[in-house]
């Protein structure tokens, strides 16, 4: 079960697209899993023959669980399971002549008392154990039998796992990732107003000669400029993990797509700096369509090295984002507005966009961020070179 987000802990296997005996190669989609981010197609990065399906359809398993075995895959080590570090600090117990029969439990009473086996079973059944009112185990703990009893009663009410988005789960995932970001990442924010006169004039001319499917949106220029400017400031592109920044040699831009009814997802546009504008438009169109249908692929959610968000023509004038961990920067483009602007000492009306940068102060300082925004602005003045 791949980790498809910074705070994903488990996923439900919805569909197998291969069966034992099938030959697979790197890039094949082998399964569909339901995560907090919706239904995601799981790709494989090995070559070989599927020998064993280990997780049945409908099962919810923790991140790191081996889903299937592939024969003939050299060094196909399963991903390490992630175990959250238990950090239960207890005061030193008093020294007694007679050891107490049971160490005092110092955890706050609000914590659910549930046995490890019961918790694991509840997770496998996608049950919320807090719904189990009464435990019959030691000290009123919820134990395996309580979960089984609850599950048999809840089975009728339980909706089957289906393809599509679970918005409440996505809300939880966003809450977890954004809370972590705000908790751990010391953000700094910069904005820069950019004159889009040249860019929009160029797009107008470009689109006028094109059929609808060939036309591009201003957002494509934003994306390309943001990606190219990262080449100049590579410290904004990469991951901060285990106390150190690891720069990425490729620029995979997570393109933020808001979903109707709530929710947000930022699948990757790989090597955005190397793609032509037409290719970028095609990639964006494809991602938006698949995000709407809940058909994104696993690698698309895990590979972004930076995020770009553009609020479009119905959004607010500026946006300062929250970094998606473990990335170290998010670039925002507000709504294009027409305002008075000083050009060569004279006031003119110009289409303007506010470009913002939220970056991780552990990795870069405002000077780097300022240079980056200046580069974005400069690149947008020469749209024909993008």
């Amino acid at each position: 079960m791949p980790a498809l987000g910074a705070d994903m802990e488990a996923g439900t296997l919805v569909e197998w697209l291969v069966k034992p005996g099938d030959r697979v190669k790197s890039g094949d989609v082998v399964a569909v899993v339901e995560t907090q981010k919706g239904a995601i197609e799981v790709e494989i990065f090995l070559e070989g023959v599927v020998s064993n399906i280990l997780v049945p359809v409908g099962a919810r398993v923790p991140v790191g669980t081996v889903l299937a075995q592939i024969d003939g895959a050299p060094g196909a080590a399963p991903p390490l399971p992630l175990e959250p570090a238990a950090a239960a600090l207890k005061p030193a117990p008093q020294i007694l002549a007679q050891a107490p029969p049971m160490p005092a439990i110092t955890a706050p009473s609000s914590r659910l008392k549930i046995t490890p086996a019961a918790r694991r079973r509840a997770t496998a059944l996608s049950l919320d154990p807090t719904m189990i009112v009464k435990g019959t185990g030691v000290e009123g703990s919820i134990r395996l039998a309580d979960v089984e009893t609850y599950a048999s009663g809840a089975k009728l009410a339980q909706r089957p796992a289906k393809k599509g988005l679970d918005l409440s789960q996505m809300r939880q995932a966003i809450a977890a990732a954004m809370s972590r970001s705000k908790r751990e990442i010391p953000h700094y924010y910069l904005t820069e107003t950019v004159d889009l006169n040249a860019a929009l004039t160029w797009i107008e001319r470009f689109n006028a000669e094109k059929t609808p499917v060939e036309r591009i949106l201003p957002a494509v220029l934003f994306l390309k400029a943001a990606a190219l400017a990262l080449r100049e400031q590579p410290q904004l592109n990469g991951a901060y993990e285990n106390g150190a920044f690891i720069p990425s040699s490729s620029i995979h831009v997570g393109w933020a797509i808001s979903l109707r009814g709530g929710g947000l997802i930022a699948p990757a546009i790989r090597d955005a700096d190397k793609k032509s504008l037409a290719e970028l438009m095609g990639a964006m169109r494809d991602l938006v369509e698949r995000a709407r249908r809940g058909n994104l692929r696993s690698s698309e959610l895990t590979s972004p090295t930076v995020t770009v968000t553009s609020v479009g023509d119905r959004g607010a004038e500026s946006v300062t984002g929250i970094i998606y961990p473990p990335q170290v920067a998010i670039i925002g483009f507000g709504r294009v507005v027409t305002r008075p602007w000083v050009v060569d000492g004279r006031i003119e009306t110009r289409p303007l966009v506010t470009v913002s940068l939220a970056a991780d102060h552990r990795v870069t300082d405002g000077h780097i961020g300022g240079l980056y925004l200046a580069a974005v602005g400069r690149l947008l003045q020469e749209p024909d070179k993008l």
Partner: protein
Amino acid sequence: MNTPQANAAATRMTYREACKQALREALLSDSRVFLMGEDIGRYGGCYAVTKGLLEEFGEERIRDTPLSESAFVGAGVGAAMAGMRPIVEIMTVNFSLLALDQILNNAVTIPHMSGGQFAIPLVIRMATGGGRRVGAQHSRSLEGWYAHIPGLRVLTPATVEDARFMLKGALADPNPVIIFEHVMLYNMEGDLPSDMEKVDIAHAKLRRAGRDVSLITYGGSLFKALEAADALAAEGIDAEVIDLRVLRPLDTKTILDSVAKTRRCVIIDEGWRSGSISAEIGMRIAEEAFFELDAPLRRVCSREAPIPYAAHLEDACLPQVATIVAVARELVRPS
């Protein structure tokens, strides 16, 4: 002695007799084997295990020693280095403390420090445990201490078959082996299958299969655990009993398999609870089978006090069947 399966073709004998037959077999089959210890010759051993062996094998091979555990265990280490197969008897584990330097710094360490040039095929037998009303300095259970030491193999035969056949495996081991014989077992009787010739000295053994809770124990507590399992069965609780048999190296797999099945576990250990072998077992379960557990781990150990002389106090101090039943019941059916 109520061993699980009563075999038609079996000989009934005491645990003491099984120990003696094991020694006789060793003496008869290998001329390098000899016995050494306090009062094992003329007196026949303080628990009468070696009674009659002096007459049969003579003073060369059944050697009474001065009252110096350090001296005769040291002599055993030297004899083992020189190629003999000494079987040293220490009256009880309590007195083995006088020989700890020989055991830990010499017997265990020489094979290591000589880079394997010297093997120490030494077997030390000693009685252990309480229940005989002989006071604190004769009643301790220190098997867990010895199980702490890498380089030792620690055996705790609890059944007639293990008493009869573990010695053979111990003699075949090139490293020092300690065999703990619980004092309350010597007079117990059990059936020895007539077709049996050996037992392994590496694995724990399932003595009774069950679904609801694992009772993990060894040595003198095995029969208390089996009796507790009978009492629990009468209440409809199906207890499994694991006889560890070997405290070092510990057969973790058998323990984990049992816990994975029953998901509940009581460890019964006559040693004191703090820093005991039961603590080690509990920790291994916590480390390797945490997510299998459906109840907290529990232990029944001796009270943390010197074992009293007075009968009612000694009984109150040692693990008893009623306690095991109560603790196991509380895990399965909390009140």
